[in-house]
């Protein structure tokens, strides 16, 4: 087995009186897609933000390619090679699509912004994600939810990351765009990147993930190979009970589902 490119151990984080993360461990190998699953409020986004340097954890270690590192600011994570797509999209509403895509990594020529080059590259990038935009020069505030999401995804892929964190990337996407993003995740894996994918969509998870790590109420609640584990088992781990609304609903509507 290859050495994990990113390894977390004993990560805890509390907000005031709420213990959002409690001694969480997680590792991702190069060329591996790890799905991070859990109920609403389980702490998935909090964990992603700790790795990305948006909030730093209260305690715990982060190992990067085996070495202990400190990630205190988003810039630290980016320098290591961690690209992140946040659940709350984190775009600058007043800037246009091109400016958002290249925010913080603008191309310059002779000290001035090279708008031509950036616009050309943006066009190429968005073409590959099959989403229709009214124009590359509208402020992102006027875009639809899915359009914004696609920009955020495209943004994260501009650099040369080694690990990609995706926090519910397909939640707002249409079927075609979702398919494109799943393709993309597979391409990332094939290029040897480590991918952490947060998603509530079991179909997507089963399609691209190699392993599923489950969080429940801020704690680790299991680590499964996706191939070997049944849908019901994973859902039981997420909800913490085998008798849950999903299974109840499934038993009622089994006959109806296509």
């Amino acid at each position, binding site marked *: 087995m290859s050495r994990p490119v990113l390894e977390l151990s004993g990560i805890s984080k509390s907000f005031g009186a709420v213990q959002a993360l409690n001694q969480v461990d997680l590792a991702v190998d190069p060329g591996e897609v790890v799905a991070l699953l859990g109920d609403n409020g389980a702490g998935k986004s909090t964990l992603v933000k700790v790795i990305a340097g948006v909030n730093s954890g209260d305690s715990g270690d982060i190992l990067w390619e085996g070495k202990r590192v400190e990630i205190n600011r988003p810039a630290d994570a980016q320098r290591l090679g961690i690209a992140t797509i946040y659940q709350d999209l984190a775009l600058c*509403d007043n800037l246009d699509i091109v400016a958002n895509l290249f925010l913080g990594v603008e191309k310059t020529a002779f000290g001035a912004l090279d708008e031509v080059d950036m616009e050309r590259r943006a066009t190429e990038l968005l073409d590959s994600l099959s989403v229709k*935009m*009214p*124009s590359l020069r509208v402020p992102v505030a006027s875009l639809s939810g899915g359009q914004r999401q696609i920009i955020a995804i495209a943004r994260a892929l501009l650099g040369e990351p080694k690990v990609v964190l995706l926090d519910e990337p397909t939640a707002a996407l249409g079927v075609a765009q979702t398919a494109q993003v799943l393709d993309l995740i597979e391409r990332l894996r094939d290029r040897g990147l480590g991918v952490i994918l947060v998603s509530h969509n079991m179909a997507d998870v089963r399609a691209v993930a190699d392993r599923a790590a489950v969080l429940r109420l801020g704690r680790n609640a299991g680590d499964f190979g996706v191939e070997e584990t049944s849908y019901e088992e994973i859902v039981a781990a997420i909800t913490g009970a085998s008798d849950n609304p999903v299974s109840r609903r499934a038993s009622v509507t089994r006959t109806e589902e296509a």
Partner: protein
Amino acid sequence: MAQQTPVSNSDETATGTAFDRDPRLMVTRTSPASLLAAIKRRIRGGELGPLPVIVGLILICIVFQLMHERFLSPQNLSNLTVQIAGVGLMTTGVIMVLLLGEIDLSIGSVAGASAAVLAVLAVRVGIPEWAAIAAAAATGLIIGILHGTLFAKVGVPAFVVTLAGLLGWQGVQLQLLGSDGTINISDSGPIAALTHTFFVPAFGWGIAAVAVGAFVVFTLFGERRRAAAGLMAMSPLEIAVRSIALAVPVFGSVYILNQYKGLPLALIIFVGFVVAFDLMLRKTRYGRMVFAVGGGAEAARRAGINVDRVRISVFALASMLSALGGIMLVSRSFSASLDTAAGEELMMGIAAAVIGGTSLFGGRGNAYSALLGGLVLGAITSGLYLLQMGTPVRFMITALVLLIAVTLDAMSRRSRRAHARGG
């Protein structure tokens, strides 16, 4: 000329590339007809840019000229350009801060304190005047760094930091000028020269030609490159229209000013700073960062931008520009006093930025606001004094113009604001 924000380029680049664009959007711009259509659409869509202010300025000029025949005389216009330079520089600084979505209430006090430093060093201590100018500018810079640090690192709201600055630096001004109250400076040294130097006609024409020429060359070159990269570019027609729209006021001003004493150095300094800040805001990474922080500080932080550094630098620049404004005020009146920049300067500086079209909510605006807004307010003051109107009237008219300018802007933007965020 002035562009609202990095996004207002909108239609230029809308079609004509390989990009999978929305077929609902129909924009071409190669014939005069389609150019007109695009302009009409902009007007209907509320994207008027600086147009309403320019129209307003022209109206104001016409009204005052009708009421007093000397209003548009070269002498009055020459005075006007020198009168607005000091507060204009302060406005340029305020615009930077407004772009961040913050406010700087200390610009007047900082200008006053820097003016006091200038006069004390140049006259009482007796160091060379150019060194005193540098020291006064540095004073502004340091004050700004202090403000920015308190805001960015400690987290005190900018309103409070600069409110404290408004009080504190005025205290410093009082302390420095102390007992005398007023210090006269030489009327022939470098400080006085800043606002009392006028260039020979040839020089004025030269500067105008260089400025317009540079604009044409860079635009042509840039659009050539766009076209080569397969992106939508401006048509030669549009480039020509824009060039003429720039050339007419530039050469016109030079012509008029040459009829009196010539192009004032103060105007060149002011316009120079405005152009430099405009280029910095629109064409550099730093400017992009300022807009990004103004539009969404958390998003900018997550994009790896050092938000604290951007904030501190913006406050530093703003206070430095205030200091420069203070120096210009001293230069104009040959003296620094307890009243230097302690009166309407703060209010007028902010009002000019807003009239020029810079938003109070961050992330939208441009450096040209300083010039446009400054000209509007300067023209009003100048005209009312020509007509010998009293202070209450001037206050009320200024308030009214401020309201009208912003109301126009608000109404034209109404539809866009109502549903700001899609999804």
